[in-house]
Every structure is written in structure tokens, then in C-alpha cells.
């Protein structure tokens, strides 16, 4: 179990004309990843998904807040003592084409981390080859075919499976999959998503799934939890199925409304929400972060910042999911199936 409380992170960018610019990438984010669970982060480009994923994987520092792994607070540990904890969390690179060293065979790619693992766990050298084969079978590819080959001889889907197998060499408890299927052909995506689901079920690995393509979040298995992130703040959080079927935050609704409709199979949702402006990260930070783009914004939204809760707002009913909005209301935004 990994939990985070009030994580903040601000990047200092070398600005252009305006001089130094501070980019608040995360503004006090809480999260919890259960053993064997699935947590998905969605949101527009630049909202902080990768930053949060990298912090969870121990690859990025944070300014304030606390991360607790299996009841141990990371702030109390030295860098060296933190390492064994973060080793249990492995990041899967988004680009299967650049993630593998082109000059090494798949056998060589898996051998190096497995040797290290063998030393760490006191296993004999002979274990390494057997484990490499076992891991490749686990991710659904034929070890005999793949082991002697170089990355360029494999399809995108196979490469991504190899990348996942490499992450598994460290016996991780959490896999952080940052856009792990976006670069893969549509025809092969479900295969990788099914593999992540399988790893959860069979090995009890938790999956942290970061994506632009919200529909894919439904395919990494049951009891998934969805976090909708906007400008560094979680604005809606709850069960993946609930939020997709019945979103209450206007930002979530605009994300879901933007998903293309498959004409002939679907018709657009009846109450689609379109933001009134484009995203501008330099926008003022007063009030609700979404207020300038929100079609339902009121004076209160401009003055106060809503916090994550179940409150149904004036005259409304409390919601199942958490949301940060003064006027939550469910709207029918996703495409509906039609008769073929």
C-alpha cells in the first residue's frame, strides 16, 4: 500500500519574455494505491500526470507532503534507505521504440537486471535464464522467438511486452504505466491492457495507469479508481466506471465530451460540455482553477477554491465520488450506442 498526502511540486522554468516562470505542477495531491489495485490518472496535457507518476516511482523530488509505503514514511529515511522501497515501484516507458537498447538482444536486455536480482536474492546464476523465459511467457510472448532477437525485429506490441517483462525482473509491487499503450497500434492495445489486468490478478501487482485515452482505463481490470487531474489538482476521484458513466465535475465532463464519436455505432451524448476557452496555464489562480473555462461558473467559483469532497452543492444530493466543484451535477456526455 502506498499513500501520498498533500504532495506539491513547483517547477522553475526559464521563461521567455516574462522572465522566470513558476509552474505549479502539483498543488497538494492525495492518493492511495492498494495492493493489487488499479489507479488511473487522466487529464489534459501538462496537468501533472507524469510528474506525479515519477514522484511515486521515486524518480522525481517533491516540495512538500508525505509518501508512506507499507506504513513507513519516506520523509524519515535517508536517500539510501529509501531505495529498497522505491525499487518495488517500476516505471514502464511510454515509447516502446526508444525504451529498449537497439544494440542488445532481448536476452541481453533481460539478463543484466536479472543478474542483479539474483545477487540481491542469493539465487544461483542458472536461475537467470530460466527466469527470463518465465517472464517472457508471463507477458505472452514466445521466449524462443524473442530472446535472440533485437528490438527492431519485433512489432510495437511485442516490444512493449518486453519492456513490461524487464520491469518485472525487479519483482515490483507497483507498475507505473505512463501512456503505455498510446504508441501501440489500436489492434494490439487491448492485448497489453489485458496483460496488465492479468498481472494484477495473477501476481497481485498494483497498476498505476496514466493515460490520455480514458476508455482504456476501463480495461485494466475490476475495481479501478480514476483520478481526474486539472492544473495540478485532483478535481474528481472515484470508481472508474462511476466517473465515466456519471461524471459530476464540469472538467471531467469536458474531457469525456471531447472523445470522438464513432459515427454509425454511436451518437454524441445529449449534454456535451465544451470549455469556453483554451487551456492557459498562466491563468490567474484565484477561485476554482477551472472557472475561466467553465460554462457553469458562478461568482462563488471566482472567489473560492472548491476542495475535494462528496458535497452535492446547493440543492443537490451528495455524490458517490469525490469532486472539487461547487455545482456538481451529473450530465450525459459520453457517446451512446445506436442500432447498427
Amino acid at each position: 500500500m502506498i499513500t501520498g498526502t498533500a504532495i506539491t511540486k513547483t517547477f522553475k522554468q526559464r521563461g521567455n519574455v516574462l522572465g522566470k516562470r513558476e509552474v505549479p505542477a502539483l498543488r497538494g495531491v492525495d492518493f492511495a494505491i492498494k495492493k493489487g489495485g488499479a489507479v488511473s490518472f487522466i487529464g489534459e496535457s501538462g496537468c501533472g500526470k507524469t510528474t506525479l507518476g515519477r514522484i511515486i516511482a521515486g524518480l522525481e523530488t517533491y516540495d512538500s507532503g508525505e509518501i508512506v509505503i507499507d506504513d513507513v514514511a519516506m520523509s524519515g529515511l535517508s536517500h539510501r534507505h529509501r531505495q529498497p522501497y522505491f525499487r518495488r515501484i517500476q516505471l514502464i516507458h511510454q515509447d516502446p521504440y526508444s525504451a529498449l537498447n537497439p544494440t542488445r538482444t532481448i536476452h541481453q536486455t533481460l539478463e543484466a537486471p536479472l543478474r542483479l536480482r539474483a545477487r540481491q536474492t542469493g539465487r544461483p546464476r542458472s536461475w537467470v535464464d530460466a527466469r527470463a523465459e518465465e517472464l517472457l511467457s508471463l507477458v505472452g510472448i514466445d521466449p524462443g522467438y524473442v530472446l535472440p532477437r533485437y528490438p527492431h525485429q519485433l512489432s510495437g506490441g511485442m516490444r512493449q511486452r518486453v519492456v513490461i517483462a524487464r520491469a518485472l525482473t525487479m519483482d515490483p509491487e507497483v507498475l507505473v504505466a505512463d501512456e503505455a499503450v498510446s504508441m501501440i497500434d489500436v489492434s494490439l492495445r487491448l492485448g497489453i491492457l489485458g496483460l496488465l489486468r492479468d498481472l494484477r490478478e495473477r501476481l497481485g501487482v498494483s497498476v498505476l495507469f496514466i493515460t490520455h485515452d480514458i476508455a482504456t482505463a476501463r480495461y485494466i481490470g475490476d475495481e479501478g479508481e480514476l483520478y481526474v487531474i486539472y492544473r495540478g489538482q485532483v478535481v474528481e476521484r472515484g470508481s472508474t466506471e462511476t466517473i465515466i458513466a456519471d461524471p459530476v465535475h464540469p472538467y471531467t465532463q469536458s474531457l469525456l465530451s471531447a472523445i470522438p464519436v464513432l459515427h454509425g455505432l454511436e451518437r454524441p451524448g445529449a449534454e456535451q460540455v465544451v470549455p469556453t476557452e483554451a487551456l492557459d496555464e498562466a491563468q490567474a489562480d484565484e477561485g476554482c482553477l477551472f472557472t475561466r473555462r467553465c460554462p457553469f461558473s458562478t461568482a462563488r467559483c471566482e472567489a473560492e477554491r472548491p476542495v475535494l469532497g462528496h458535497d452535492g452543492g446547493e440543492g443537490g444530493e451528495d455524490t458517490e465520488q469525490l469532486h472539487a466543484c461547487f455545482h456538481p451535477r451529473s450530465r450525459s456526455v459520453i457517446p451512446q450506442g445506436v442500432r447498427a
Partner: protein
Amino acid sequence: MSRDSAAPEVRIRDLTVVYNTPAGELPAVSHVSLTLTPGTITGVVGESGSGKSTLALSLLNAVQPPGRIAEGSVEIDGLGDVLRLDGEDLRRTRGRKVGYVFQAAQNSLNPLKTIGKQLLDLGRSHDVEDLRALVADAKALLSRMGLDGARVLDSHQHELSGGMRQRVGIMLALVLNAQVVVLDEPTTALDMITQATILRIIREVHEERALTTLVITHDVGAVAEVADDLAVMYGGRVVEHGPIAEVLGAPRHPYTQGLIRAIPRLSGDISLARALPGRPPTLGTLPAAGCVFRERCEKRMEICETVEPATATYDGRSVACHAAGRPAPVKRREYA
């Protein structure tokens, strides 16, 4: 109405493009015939390596070695066969008559010059007389795509995000008022909201200017939103082509059926979506005879091993499959 203001028809006939590889010349596009109806947006979808970009390059006669257009023609109303143009005629056609954004256009801008400077270079090379008007048009297009036109024109490539560069590419494709526009992966790597905005603008500009547009993507969703017609490519062939609602709603080619079934969906039973078995072919693994899709096909018959299926027309749609005579729409309970 002057000739110019009517959208042109584009007729691709029997087009074959080969790449020279260690194993000899292999076809990346093989005997493709495709008509782009005047004033429509045609989407081209297919897996990586199916020949989409090679087809796009052929429309501008821009295939580079080791590639070579081996046979066929690309007739555009008012221009004739583009494949017969060369030298100055060809240079003037590109950009002015046929606007284009090639794949990975984000990386094809000149890193040393501001976008504005590159715009002026483009205008001069096409003898645009009123450069002020050109800049004004460019700014208007950029602001429609949600960008601050003046700022973008003053920027160098590295000062723009990937999504901004992609929009700059689209602006450059449209700004010379070409009547045929080819966009190769215009929204890849954009998030959903930005993608939706850009697709809407492509559609609007297309209609305002009466263009004939080709949009290439590996993402069926992205074209489903803008295209009138859909062409599905597999292994260098167009295996199915027709009105988009019909191709998506009742696909006839087993590959189109498998592709649609493989799309993760927001609603409905998730167990109904399935990955397509097998893997996408490469130039070297394409079978030399028979149907190129047969190894991954659920419906394959004996004839598929030896005879390449001819393209036949079924209710306004063309399909290249021996089993296409027997329609089998994608069965997904939620739509039944």
C-alpha cells in the same frame, strides 16, 4: 462559378510504390485505386507500416529513395497527373495546389528561423504578392486553433510545445489556399480536448473553402469525428472504402471488423472488445500470393491462400475480400 472555386476530384489509379530493401524492391503500396470525392474529407486508417504515409507522399509525387513510384497515376482536377509533373511545375504544385502536413511535422520546422520568417519564405517561394495578407491569414488561422498568432510567429520551434507545432503545421498547409489538403497524423500526441478543437477547425476550414481533404491516422476515433468517407489500409492495399457511418456501422472486411472490435470503448460490456490476433505485417513478411490479411483472418478459405481478392462493390462500398459477399456486421450486444 469559376473553375477554381469548385473542389477538385482526386483519382488515384493502380498506384504501386516500392522500397528498395536488402531483399529487393518490395511494394509498400500495391495497386491502390481510390477516388476522393470533391468536397469531402476522406480518412485513411491502418496499422503502422500499412502504407498510409507512402500513399500521402505519392499525392505530392514526393516519394524519396530508396522508395520509387513504380506504376499508376494520381489525377487531380485542374492539375492532371501529378506523377508526371517535375521540376518547377512540381515545386509550385506542392503547398499552393496541394497543401500538406507530413507525419512528424512537429520536427520538420527550421530550428534556426522564427515561424514568421518561415511563413514569409513560403510565400515568396510561391510568388505571393501580398505578404501582409498572408501573415494576416496565418494569424487568423492560428487564433482559430486557440493560439496567439503574433506570439507564435515570433517564436522559434523550440519555444513551442508539440501540440503547438502540430497546429503550426496545419496553418502552413492551409495558408496558401490549396484546394487539396493532405494531413498525415495531424493530431497524434495531442490530448483529447486539443484534438477535438483541431478536428473541428479542420472540418470548418474544409467546408468554408470547399476543399478535398485526406486525413491519415492510426486512430479510428480521430477520423470518425471528421471524415465523410473512410479508407482502410492493410499491407499496402485499400481493403475497404466507403461512407464512414457505413464502414464503421457495418464493416464488411474482416480486418475492418477486427479493428473496430479492438477499440476500447467508454460504454458497454468490456469483454466484447478484443485484440486482433497476430501482428501487423512488414514489407518482408507480406505473403507474395493470396490475401495479405489471411494469416490473421477468422474467415479465411482455401482460395485466400492463392488468389489475391479483387476489389468489388457492395452497396456503395468497395471491399477486397473473398468472403465479403456474406456480410457479418460486428456483433456487439449493446447495439443490437
